[in-house]
Structure formats: structure tokens, C-alpha cells
């Protein structure tokens, strides 16, 4: 039975966890913008931000201050309520899904086991999908409420793109779900701990990527499209649509769209790590506190690799044309995802029989 002091302890721990995770996430997003400008700069033989602080390290802070003090402009014929609502929807949906992401094992404090995760839902993966599927509204509504032609085009493109690629995103992970047999993100990650052995020799970690390479490919390509990043960034394609859905947004409302895009990148990278790359699995050694912290480090390292890959892709690939985008989603990714599910289920049935 939970006593009132237990409940108080639980609440306190949860609030502390939420505060820490939000702080880490916000800092990570701020420095992700710095990293993006730095890496793309070096890809293009430039230095990137260099003036504010050593190697431009204080640039995110300067950007934040700049956003805060800029004039907030609203188009004359905009729909006021929805125009306000859109950036908030973007922020809330982008930050909500981090609540079910596990980033390590658990540790004991005063006889309580504290998992390194805000909450473990038994339908955690579906929760993330539900929240991200609501994130579409921020873009659609921003495009509509601005009452201006370029944002409207951006919003229309985005809604069609999101619906198309959400299917491929879902199909990509079904293979993993069939193998692990659970929808809890902690359960999926825990099922990948350990190694495959051949004659007593460790060969490969038990990561799903080795069982589901096609599923991973489908998932990650669809995920890039879902986060509206290059080469799928048609909702904001600046050569045709000025800045797409957020053309009419300025000051802090623009910053909210900007932050939510990076938060979505972090979420998608976390999911890719948890579903396909074993979550926090990695070499663990040393005293007790190191055994708690090392898995967190491995998790963050893997997420960082994905984020770097995102930026790398942006510095490398040109943008799709709109009809190419739709054809790629419906005629390539979707059938590939379905075929992957079919093959996986046949193999699983064969193993189980």
C-alpha cells in the first residue's frame, strides 16, 4: 500500500525528473542549432558562428535574446485565436512525447526504485505517435491562420505530406513490435540488451537494426519527412514559398516553431535509438554510480549520432520536388514497409512453429 509519504516522495521525484529533463532538452535544442550552423558551415568550407563566445558557443543565447526583443507582427487579416494557438500546439506536442522516453536503467534512492524515465506507459510508442500526429495541426493551422498565400501552400503541402509519411512511419516499426512483443518503450529497449553468440564468442549486440534493417530504413526516411527536414522540407521550401507555413511569424512565436522542429528531431532520434539501436545498451563497468550513468551516456551518444546524421543530410542532399515526394512515399516506402512486415511475420511464424 502506498502511504502519503510515499506519494509525496513519488511526486517530488517526478517533478525533479521533469525539471531536469526539460532543462537538458532545452539546452540540447539550443546547442543543436549551434551544431547545425557549425557543421553545415564546415561542410560548405565556412567557419559558421565564431564571434559570440569561443567558437561561437554563446550564439544560442544571443539568438534567444534577439528573438525575445524582436517586434511581434501579426498580419492584418489573420485569424487571431488560431494564429496564437498554432505555435503553442507546436511546442506542446513537440515536448510532450519526451515524457515516455526511457534513457537508462533505474537506481535506488532511500529504498525506492527510480527509473530513468518520466513515466513508463504500456502503450508508450503509440503515445508518441499520437502526440506527433497532433503536431501536424500546428503547421496546418499556422498556414491557414496567417491568411496569406505562401503559408497556406505550406500548410496544405505539409498536411498531405504528414498523412502520407505517417503510414510509412508506423509500418516501419511494426517489425520491431512483432519481435519484442510489447508497446512499452522500456520493454522494447530492454529486449535488446545482451549479445548474440556463435560458439561462445560474442559477435553482435542484440540490436533490432540487425534483424530489421529494412524497417529501420523505412522508419528513418519517414521520420525525416515527418520532422519536415531536408530533403523533405517542402512545407517551408524557401525557393518557392519564402518560408512556407511560418512566413508570417516573427519574434518569439517564430522561435517556438523553430524550437519545436528541433525538439521533434530529438524525439525521432530517441525513438530510432530505442527501437533499433538497443536504447541504453553498451559496455557498463565500474562502481555503482558509473553503472547508472554509463547507460545514459551510451543513449545520449547514439541520439547525438542520429542528430549529426540529420545535419549531415541537410548539408548534402537537395530538396525533392513535390510529385517526387508523394511518389516516393506512396510507391516506394509504403510497399517496402508492407513487404518488410510480411517477411518478418513469415520468419517469426516459422521460428515459433
Amino acid at each position: 500500500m502506498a502511504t502519503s509519504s510515499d506519494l509525496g516522495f513519488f511526486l517530488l521525484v517526478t517533478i525533479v525528473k521533469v525539471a531536469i529533463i526539460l532543462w537538458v532538452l532545452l539546452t540540447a535544442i539550443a546547442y543543436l542549432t549551434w551544431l547545425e550552423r557549425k557543421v553545415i558551415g564546415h561542410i560548405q568550407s565556412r567557419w559558421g558562428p565564431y564571434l559570440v563566445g569561443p567558437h561561437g558557443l554563446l550564439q544560442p543565447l544571443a539568438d534567444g535574446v534577439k528573438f525575445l526583443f524582436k517586434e511581434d507582427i501579426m498580419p492584418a487579416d489573420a485569424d487571431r485565436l488560431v494564429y496564437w494557438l498554432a505555435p503553442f500546439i507546436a511546442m506542446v506536442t513537440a515536448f510532450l512525447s519526451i515524457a515516455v522516453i526511457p534513457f537508462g536503467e533505474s537506481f535506488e534512492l532511500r529504498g525506492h526504485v527510480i527509473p530513468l524515465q518520466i513515466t513508463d506507459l504500456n502503450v508508450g510508442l503509440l503515445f508518441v505517435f499520437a502526440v506527433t500526429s497532433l503536431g501536424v495541426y500546428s503547421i496546418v493551422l499556422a498556414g491557414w491562420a496567417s491568411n496569406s498565400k505562401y503559408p497556406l501552400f505550406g500548410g496544405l503541402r505539409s498536411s498531405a505530406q504528414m498523412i502520407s509519411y505517417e503510414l510509412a512511419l508506423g509500418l516501419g516499426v511494426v517489425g520491431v513490435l512483432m519481435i519484442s512483443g510489447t508497446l512499452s518503450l522500456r520493454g522494447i529497449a530492454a529486449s535488446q540488451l545482451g549479445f548474440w553468440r556463435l560458439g561462445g564468442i560474442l559477435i553482435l549486440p542484440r540490436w533490432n537494426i540487425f534483424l530489421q534493417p529494412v524497417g529501420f530504413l523505412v522508419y528513418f526516411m519517414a521520420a525525416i519527412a515527418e520532422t519536415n527536414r531536408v530533403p523533405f522540407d517542402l512545407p517551408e521550401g524557401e525557393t518557392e514559398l519564402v518560408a512556407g507555413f511560418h512566413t508570417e511569424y516573427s519574434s518569439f512565436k517564430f522561435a517556438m516553431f523553430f524550437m519545436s522542429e528541433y525538439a521533434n528531431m530529438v524525439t525521432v532520434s530517441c525513438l530510432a535509438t530505442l527501437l533499433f539501436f538497443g536504447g541504453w545498451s553498451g559496455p557498463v563497468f565500474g562502481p555503482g554510480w558509473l553503472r547508472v550513468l554509463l547507460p545514459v551516456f551510451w543513449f545520449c551518444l547514439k541520439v547525438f549520432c542520429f542528430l549529426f546524421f540529420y545535419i549531415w543530410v541537410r548539408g548534402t542532399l537537395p530538396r525533392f520536388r513535390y510529385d517526387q515526394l508523394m511518389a516516393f512515399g506512396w510507391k516506394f516506402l509504403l510497399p517496402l514497409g508492407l513487404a518488410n512486415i510480411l517477411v518478418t511475420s513469415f520468419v517469426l511464424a516459422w521460428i515459433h512453429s
Partner: protein
Amino acid sequence: MLAIFYMAAAVAVLAAMAVVFQRTPVYSALSLIVVLGALAVVYLLLDAPFIAMIQVIVYAGAIMVLFVLVIMLLNARPEEPTRGSRFAHWLGVPLLIVFLGEFSYLIFRRFPARAAPSAADASPEAIGHLLFRSYVLPFEVTSILIVVAILGAVVLAKKQL
């Protein structure tokens, strides 16, 4: 738990009324999304998290996006309030009240107040077993029906294939 239910129910009813009374089509669509979200909370309280998440993903996240997309494509403006026929005023409102009274009386008689049927297993596994074992024929028939509907839509939309 009961307090959360009443809050979700109140939000659902108020938003559902907003769907009808709003004059701007986009606001109506947004209110409908709020209704679907509130219903998802009710499903959560009934120990059916899987159904709740599917409700949000499918209805709020996909179908309503299409609704909003269509409204935006048509660029639907706020409706002009019509005078309203006298017939609707004098006969419609009393009839609505009679209908609501009858409906709620029947519901209360058929389902007297008691605990929610939480004993039913609503896990993904259980729903999968129901769908693909007991109800596999209706399930497949539905999917064929949907394919037929899609084909019909394509034929209607494209004069030349």
C-alpha cells in the same frame, strides 16, 4: 478518477455544442478535435489505453487533418446566419427537448448507474485476438468495402485514368 471523468465529459459536451454553434468551419473542426481528445481521456479512465491512443492517432491525427485540409482548400468563410424558418423555431426546439429527454430516460433505464465495465480486457493482444480470430470475416469485409470506396473516389475524381 470521477472528477477527471466529469471534467472530460464536460469538455466533450461543451466542445460538441461548439461544433454545432460555431459559424467558422475551421473552429467547428477544431472543436471536433477537442471532442475526440476528451473521449480519448474517457477511454483511458475505462482502462483501455490502446483504444484511447488509436482514437487520437486515427481520428484526431489523420481523419480530422483531412477535414481541416478540405476546409482550407475550399477556403470556407464564416457562415451567413440565415433568418431561420419559423417552423424550425416553433417545432424544432420542443421536439429536440422531447427527443433528448426520451433518449436519456432510455439510457438510464437500460444502463443503471454502476461501475464501469473495467473487467473486459482491452490490451492490444486481446483486441488483436478478437479482431483476427472471432471477427475476422467482418474485418476483411470492411477492408474490401474501404478499397471499393477508394476505387470509386478515384474513378469519380479522374475522368480519364
